[in-house]
């Protein structure tokens, strides 16, 4: 036990003597939370619209007024011909083209139908679907107004009233969804990179050899190496939660104690993983690339940005090996919905098994002999 204390003391001195460390621990998380939660959003607003109004009637102008009054659209300019409008899309100066052909109002008055043309730059498929749906709903709304205006009382009451309600996030705020996920990312990056790099660094500098000739026990070395980063990462989580509370007004609905309990367990998995990588590599460059590779794959598949349920079965199966996916799910449950332990006990026990697996693999792979 005393031996471990000596290692801890040495690690902490080294960590805090490094001048880059304090900024990394205090500034990077805040930056990450701020930048990520503002950039990582699929919300669509200010769709850039190019208008080609060949009709120029009072109806077409009314319709355009609806678009310019909407928060979702921003009219970038007017084209006189269809080709000119498409040119705007090609140059990337607009994302959507609304074309009102001449004869639109005439048809409306005569036949009660009016034709419109909506062209969307669909390279970003999911954004295009949303832009399309928004545009159609504005057109639909205008349609209803026209009916009400010309045929008062004609409007049919909807036979089925549908009332959606959004629990846990009534404003559908995307940041509420992202922030708990980013917190997970934060502790993962700190835990995995710092612990992984640390052991390889001793290898590269040759100091590990000096340690290996001492009577130190494997478990003492591993505990001494991991505990500092475990503590720092938990501190990081506390810090991140405060920022989430103060800047984004996202409180922890569930139990904070439970959250830290799960985080402590999760960090064992992450730290074990980092240590495992560093026992298998010889240089920091290698360790860096391997950690980076797994991080990218784990993050993309974790459900941080896109729903896990939409992935094909094989991908969901791979995800049972993805520790980040577990903790993001649990963290969102606790922070946003106030779920209790019994709600995610299955996930929790998987994490326990995972922690035991990675740590014992890491201890087994760490050799005092060469």
């Amino acid at each position, binding site marked *: 036990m005393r031996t471990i204390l000596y*290692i801890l003391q*040495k690690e902490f001195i*080294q960590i805090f*003597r*490094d001048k880059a460390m304090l900024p990394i621990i205090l500034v990077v998380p805040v930056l990450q939370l701020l930048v990520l939660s503002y950039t990582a959003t699929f919300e669509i607003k200010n769709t850039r619209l190019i208008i080609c109004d060949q009709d120029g009637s009072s109806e077409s102008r009314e319709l355009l007024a609806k678009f310019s009054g909407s928060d979702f659209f921003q009219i970038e300019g007017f084209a006189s011909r269809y080709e000119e409008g498409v040119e705007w899309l090609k140059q990337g100066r607009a994302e959507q083209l609304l074309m009102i052909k001449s004869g639109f109002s005439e048809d409306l008055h005569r036949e009660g139908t009016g034709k419109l043309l909506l062209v969307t730059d669909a390279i970003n498929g999911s954004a295009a679907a949303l832009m399309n749906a928004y545009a159609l709903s504005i057109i639909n709304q205008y349609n209803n107004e026209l009916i009400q205006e010309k045929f008062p009382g004609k409007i049919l009451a909807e036979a089925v009233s549908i009332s959606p309600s959004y629990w846990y996030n009534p404003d559908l705020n995307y940041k509420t969804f992202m922030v708990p996920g980013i917190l997970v990312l934060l502790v993962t990056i700190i835990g995995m990179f710092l612990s992984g790099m640390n052991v390889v660094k001793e290898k590269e500098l040759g100091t590990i050899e000096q340690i290996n000739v001492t009577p130190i026990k494997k478990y003492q070395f591993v505990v001494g190496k991991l505990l500092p980063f475990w503590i720092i990462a938990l501190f990081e989580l506390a810090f991140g939660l405060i920022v989430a509370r103060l800047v984004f007004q996202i409180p922890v609905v569930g139990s904070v104690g439970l959250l830290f309990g799960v985080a402590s367990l999760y960090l064992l998995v992450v730290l074990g993983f980092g240590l495992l990588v560093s026992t298998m590599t010889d240089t920091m460059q290698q360790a860096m690339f391997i950690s980076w590779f797994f991080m990218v794959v784990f993050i993309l598949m974790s459900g941080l940005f896109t729903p896990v349920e939409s992935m094909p079965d094989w991908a969901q199966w791979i995800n049972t090996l993805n520790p980040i996916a577990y903790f993001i799910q649990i963290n969102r449950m606790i922070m946003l919905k106030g779920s209790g332990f019994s709600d995610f006990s299955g996930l929790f026990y998987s994490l326990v098994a995972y922690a035991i697996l990675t740590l014992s693999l890491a201890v087994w792979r760490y050799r005092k002999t060469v």
Partner: protein
Amino acid sequence: MKPVIEVHNMVKKFGDFVANDNLTFSVNQGEIFGFLGANGAGKTTAMKILCGLSKPSSGVIKVAGFDVYKQTEQIKRNIGYMSQRFSLYNDLTVRENFRFYGGIYGLSGRQIKDQTDKLLSRLGIIQSADKVLRDIPLGWKQKLAFSVAVMHKPTIVFLDEPTGGVDPVTRRQFWELIYESANEGITVFVTTHYMDEAEYCERVSIMVDGRIEALDSPDQLKKTYKSASMNEVFLKLARAPKVVI
């Protein structure tokens, strides 16, 4: 004199390559034993086995009375080691380095403090005890590394080319440290490239291509090979046998 290192027929192979070919020798307590050989002769390999960092392919080897196959942890408790590469922590102060290694070897807080003060005042740099190691010149660092290696009063201390890249004055001072430790009863097992240093040893072994070609006191070796200096002995031995290039 009782031997503290006993090696019988030690063999170490890496695939087809034989790094140590049937080594047999012993080192007595309190002796300064020089382990010489050209680069790649197999010195470091043998030393790593004796320190418990690596396992031999075959042979009977005992260090401080413990078996290198099964009792490496007991061996480690009884030896000190100073590697070829500088391996104290550059971002810790002198005192912090001592405290860390002392702690690992299980010294008490009191013992750590006493030993640190004793060793540092012997080196005469007690005033630099709280300087970060990075700011200390290389020669001093080597002496500090040696002091750390003997801090826990081991039976044997292994030194792997301890004076590489160090000026002659500092080397001289370094050897004085070695003598002091030997006088305290610590066995010194040292590899070196400097033949003048070989003269300081009580007994010397010379390795060529994985085998021990000669083992005796420097004076006896010079007689046997009819040479004026250890340098000549070494050149005769290292040049003579099969050089296959």
